[in-house]
């Protein structure tokens, strides 16, 4: 067993970290679609939009652990977590399935996706199908040359600026979860209707919207995998997302920890640094412990993915640990900063708002705990 990153991994992490710090030093969370697109181009220029794609498709050919390290560096030095989240979701839940299961025609999208020119949104969730994704109602009828998609997706991150949607629809109603098929749907197709940006509490740099497919004719070349393999493809992409995307939050927690150490060693009350009060220093110790233990679980889950093992329990434990640590640490940071943490300027309240949804997206904490418990034989 070796807990050290290799020299190459350390070098790559440092390189991405420095590049992100330089490019995003002045960047503030923005919601103007044009500015968001420009930020994506900056991320792409560092290679963040295509890290795990093969070189022939414009990527860097990195495995899951190395991709996670890249996203960790992104989250470490870019305070716009919506951007980090949006880029990661584009890469992991959209580009990965297009690369692994797409036809040659669908894979033609990948070069643009790696370059940040073609932005993707993952469209699975529906009003009546959140955790229980097998209940989706969007249908894809037809076969042969084309399918007609009909239905509405209720929460699609990146949708307002997306050029393509990786979506899921029922092709065989009798087959439940294994009657779902996956498609890459270019936005320009007739019948793709993107709603207005959804107002939300955080991750504001990642615009989200509802997406409706109205009599939308999708050529069969855009189907990913075989008919009926959409459920398995979705789960595979979620394994990547639950592993790698959450590394961005490790980066956030590390940045936040440094800010808390800085603040509590500068701030004086009762004639001394507040870090000198054990209630304060132990709070920081716990933040650090949560971060480091979550990091170990996440690295291990990604390492298993690189060994070709989609270990449901390991991935669920990593996802739960990172998301719960991110929420707990953000609450601690608020407390440590006092009133200044509550004001927008310090960026601490934004971190809390950006961390809160982590226990919901990519599979809620309750669903992950259910998987962990059931896998343990309960």
């Amino acid at each position, binding site marked *: 067993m070796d807990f050290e990153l290799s020299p190459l991994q350390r070098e790559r992490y440092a390189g991405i970290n420095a590049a992100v710090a330089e490019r995003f030093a002045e960047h503030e969370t923005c919601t103007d679609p044009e500015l968001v697109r420009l930020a994506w181009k900056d991320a792409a220029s560092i290679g963040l939009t295509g890290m795990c794609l093969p070189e022939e498709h414009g990527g860097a050919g990195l495995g899951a652990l190395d991709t996670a390290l890249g996203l960790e560096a992104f989250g470490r030095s870019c305070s716009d977590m919506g951007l980090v989240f949006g880029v990661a979701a584009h890469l992991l839940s959209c580009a990965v399935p297009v690369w692994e299961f797409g036809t040659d025609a669908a894979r033609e999208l990948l070069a643009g996706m790696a370059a940040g020119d073609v932005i993707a949104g993952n469209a699975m969730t529906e009003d009546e199908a959140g955790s229980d994704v097998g209940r989706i109602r969007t249908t894809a009828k037809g076969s042969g040359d084309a399918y007609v998609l009909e239905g509405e997706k209720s929460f699609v991150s990146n949708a307002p600026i997306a050029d393509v949607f990786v979506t899921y629809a029922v092709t065989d109603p009798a087959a439940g979860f*294994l009657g779902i098929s996956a498609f890459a749907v270019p936005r320009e197709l007739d019948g793709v209707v993107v709603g207005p940006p959804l107002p939300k509490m955080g991750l504001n740099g990642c615009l989200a919207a509802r997406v409706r497919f109205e009599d939308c004719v999708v050529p069969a070349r855009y189907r990913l995998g075989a008919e009926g393999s959409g459920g*398995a493809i979705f789960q*595979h992409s979620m394994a990547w997302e639950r592993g790698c995307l959450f590394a961005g939050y490790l980066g956030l927690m590390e940045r936040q920890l440094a800010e808390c150490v800085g603040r509590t060693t500068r701030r004086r009350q009762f004639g001394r640094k507040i870090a000198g009060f054990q209630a304060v220093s132990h709070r920081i110790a716990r933040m650090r412990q949560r971060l480091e233990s979550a990091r170990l679980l996440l690295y291990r889950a990604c390492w298993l993915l690189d060994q070709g093992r989609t*270990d449901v329990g390991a991935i669920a434990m990593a996802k739960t640990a990172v998301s719960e640590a991110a929420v707990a640490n953000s609450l601690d940071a608020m407390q440590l900063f006092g009133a200044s943490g509550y004001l927008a300027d310090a960026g601490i309240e934004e971190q809390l708002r950006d961390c809160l949804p982590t226990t919901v997206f990519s599979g809620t904490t309750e669903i992950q705990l259910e998987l962990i418990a059931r896998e343990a034989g309960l």
Partner: protein
Amino acid sequence: MTLDEVTPRIRTFIAESFLDGDPKGELTESTPLLEWEVLNSMNSALLLNFLREELRVEVPLASINAANFRDITSISKLVSGLTAVPAEGA
């Protein structure tokens, strides 16, 4: 692994994990697992994990479809037909 070895293990796993032990003994080898939503998104992930970790069989994604996971018979046939993943250290 032969079909005779695999079938009871898969049957026991499904009964214990998804059907509360199947107290009324309703689960048969031809029970339509997908149609009856025994294999929903969560349970199919757990079943695949069981096949990988306990039976040492990695089901390729292309084989995860309704025909292969329709019932215990089809799953058992699939599993016995797949090459067992070599045990660690072997």
